[in-house]
């Protein structure tokens, strides 16, 4: 009997991990601005980044609570003290500095809160977008904490956070959709932080809304929600086709739209 040996199949091509060439992977425009040491505001679909001499000094996103929400909801400050400082200085950064100067907030607490909020908002601001970003050159309002972060660090951290979420539960639908409880019994071993998130799942709130309500950073809440989803306790609410308010289906599957997006990305990368 002859044994026919076939050569082993060729190795499948392995796509290079984004992590290995993180530079420019999120926003080529941001990388270019960092290289030229630009100062100004980068406005993207899901948030804005404030740059001073090519470093990220502040970030905002409608999906992530700002330092005002984080500080007042947790009890580090009362809302009246914040309002008063805000009215006197006309901005969140000025208000925060005034509270530190008057001794009502420690410099360390502000720095912690500011950095936490910066990376939180940057995660959303650097999320894939369907519209190009815009950059406005010019000085921005001075940030609450002068310590800026190199663009490369912010990009690397954002990619790491995406990978972290993906590792916990690979379905991103729970990040934006209203959440429902599946009815599965939650074990007594649920940590208190995650239980607080689960208690607020009511069929209409989304993960960012829960974060705002609890005065927590949105990314930490996304992680909690994905862990709850992985445990089978929450799920995205099924879309109601009769609801006229429901957002239209994304056009990402339309070949023309996909082509236009690729053209846009190529132009942005020039």
């Amino acid at each position: 009997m002859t044994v026919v040996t076939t050569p082993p199949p060729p190795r499948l091509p392995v796509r290079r991990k984004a992590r290995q060439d993180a530079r420019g992977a999120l926003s080529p425009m941001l990388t270019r601005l960092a290289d030229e040491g630009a100062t100004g505001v980068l406005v993207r679909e899901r948030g804005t980044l404030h740059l001073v001499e090519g470093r990220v000094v502040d970030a905002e996103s409608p999906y992530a609570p700002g330092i005002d929400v984080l500080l007042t909801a947790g009890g580090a400050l009362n809302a009246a003290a914040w309002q008063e400082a805000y009215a006197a200085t006309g901005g969140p950064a000025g208000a925060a500095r005034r509270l530190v100067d008057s001794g009502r907030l420690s410099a360390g607490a502000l720095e912690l809160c500011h950095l936490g909020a910066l990376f939180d908002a940057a995660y959303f601001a650097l999320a894939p977008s369907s519209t190009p970003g815009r950059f406005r050159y010019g000085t921005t309002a001075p940030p609450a904490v002068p310590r800026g972060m190199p663009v490369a660090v912010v990009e690397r951290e954002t990619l790491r956070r995406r990978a972290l979420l993906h590792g916990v539960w690979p379905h991103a639908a729970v990040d934006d959709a209203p959440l429902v409880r599946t009815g599965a019994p939650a074990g007594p071993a649920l940590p208190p932080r995650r239980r607080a998130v689960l208690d607020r799942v009511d069929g209409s709130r989304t993960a960012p809304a829960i974060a705002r309500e609890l005065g927590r950073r949105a990314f930490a809440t996304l992680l909690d929600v994905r862990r709850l989803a992985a445990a089978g306790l929450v799920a995205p609410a099924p879309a109601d086709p009769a609801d006229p308010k429901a957002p239209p289906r994304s056009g990402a599957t339309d070949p023309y739209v996909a082509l236009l997006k690729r053209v846009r990305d190529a132009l942005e990368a020039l």
Partner: protein
Amino acid sequence: MPGIDECLLDAMRLPGALGAALVDWTSGLALGTVGEAPGGDHETTAAEAAELARLAAEHRAFAAGDGEAGGPPDPPVEDVIVSNRDSYHLLRFVPASFDHTVFLHLWLARTDGNLALARIRLGEMAARLVLG
């Protein structure tokens, strides 16, 4: 008033200190680092230490006993100590008055480090960082 960098530099003055970092245990983000890191990479060390800290903070087995009014203390754990043949790792949770989930990570050489002293001092530094 101390900021993150001053706090970490303070920690480095402890006898035997090799490196220190301030790390967020939900995300694994290093908010500040000073000195050396085991393996040479502060970011990787931060992510690994954060995983250990998260398990300690989330599992009921390590929480203090019940009986206090006003819900569970945040964070439920004060510190995590890991020792090996040549060094100590001391993770000290920073008390939270708003939503942050950070801890101080101090890496001590076993030959000149004093674990008891470092534990007391690191606790004081953690409190000073957020309370001023």
